[in-house]
């Protein structure tokens, strides 16, 4: 029950999806539509699981007065506040309408925090560029050179630096060539390799050879 049923479910659902690609008619089309709807609902519960697990871990920290427990309390309080506002004080299904309290939380709290967290990476990439990127060998030099040409070619300053060259031969054109030829070739090789690996792993999952997603015995 603990392992056989999930293995059977994985195989059954996987086979339906594969067969439906080749036989897009009844009954497979109807079965796949139903399974698609179910997967969407289950996926929503899966994310809920993550959220509730976070609350469980944070609650445990607060209960045990573990190191940093006030921050766990902040997590719980802010989660509860956002949820209560979103469920009960923002017009139900119209919770994202401009002017609702939930929309205010999104624009005034969530938006700036999320944006700034990612904006911080600019400082770290600059620091890493100074301290870590070294042209130690031919490959690293080629990597840095390509990086330079793309960085300068993709902004207007690149064309200004090479405006003495005829049109069509400036830094922006070189950057465009790098993106459309060697970059495309390398990305394509990586893409094909990953695709073959993904196909192989998917087949192993459907056939029940790969059972990692079921975890250990409990």
């Amino acid at each position: 029950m603990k392992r056989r049923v999930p293995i059977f479910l994985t195989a059954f659902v996987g086979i339906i999806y594969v067969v439906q690609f080749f036989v897009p008619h009844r009954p497979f089309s109807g079965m796949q539509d139903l399974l698609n709807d179910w997967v969407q609902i289950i996926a929503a519960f899966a994310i809920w699981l993550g959220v509730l697990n976070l609350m469980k871990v944070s609650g445990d920290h607060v209960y045990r007065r573990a190191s940093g427990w006030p921050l766990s309390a902040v997590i719980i309080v802010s989660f509860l506040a956002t949820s209560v506002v979103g469920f009960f004080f923002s017009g139900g299904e119209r919770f994202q309408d401009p002017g609702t309290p939930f929309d205010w939380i999104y624009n005034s709290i969530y938006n700036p925090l999320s944006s700034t967290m990612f904006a911080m990476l600019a400082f770290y990439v600059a620091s890493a560029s100074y301290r870590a990127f070294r042209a130690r060998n031919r490959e690293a030099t080629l990597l840095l050179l390509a990086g330079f040409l793309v960085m300068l070619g993709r902004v207007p300053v690149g064309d200004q630096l090479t405006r003495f060259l005829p049109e069509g031969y400036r830094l922006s054109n070189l950057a465009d060539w790098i993106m459309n030829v060697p970059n495309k070739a390398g990305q394509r090789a990586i893409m094909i390799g990953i695709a073959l690996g993904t196909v192989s792993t998917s087949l192993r999952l459907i056939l029940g050879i790969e059972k990692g997603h079921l975890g250990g015995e409990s």
Partner: protein
Amino acid sequence: MMNLIGIWIAALLTLGILSFLYKDNPIYKFCEALFVGVSAGYWFVSLFWQNIWPKLVLNLHAAALKLLAGGGVDSRWFYLISGVLGVMMLMRLLPKGGWISRWPLAFIVGSTAGLYFITYLQSNAISQIHDTLVPLVTAGNGRFLWIPLPFNIDWDAFFVFVGTFTGLIYFFFSIEHTKLAGKTARVGTFFLMVTFGASFGYTVMSRMSLLIGRFDFLFRDWLHLTH
């Protein structure tokens, strides 16, 4: 008024996060914890109102009303199974009985495996090979540098073909990279280095853009120093 308060709160939270650049401090830790909690709440609420409510609750409600009105059993009752599977997923939180969450997990893994089996083969393998194997030499008047030729060479397509082929040889670890295979893989390495360099350049562009956006908010929307 709420808009003004909102902008001030947004600005102070922005500065709170940026304070980490000087050194780790309690203000940053508070902002980080606030972000985690508000994000969790955001996802929790969005998933309910946009997914669970219309697709599960309202469908079952409509099916129940139809049954009570004597309209018979509706096909929407099938959604009950997805609801049960969803609740099974949540049972992973329980100390005992968490194994039951493997059933809905198997559903998702199976659907993803089935979808990826076809789509990755079609879009990321066969289509890419198809787009690489294009005519490199075509009829017509062309030239190599200044030398006129009675045919056209598509040099870009040639380099893409060479780069893709040698890159794939580099990733083929079932043969030893010596002699001809080694030299081919080495050419592939150079193409991959250019690829990674281009990715590095674009990554820098991306991160700087995000920072520019934040500073623009601080100077324009908050302090009104720019227009």
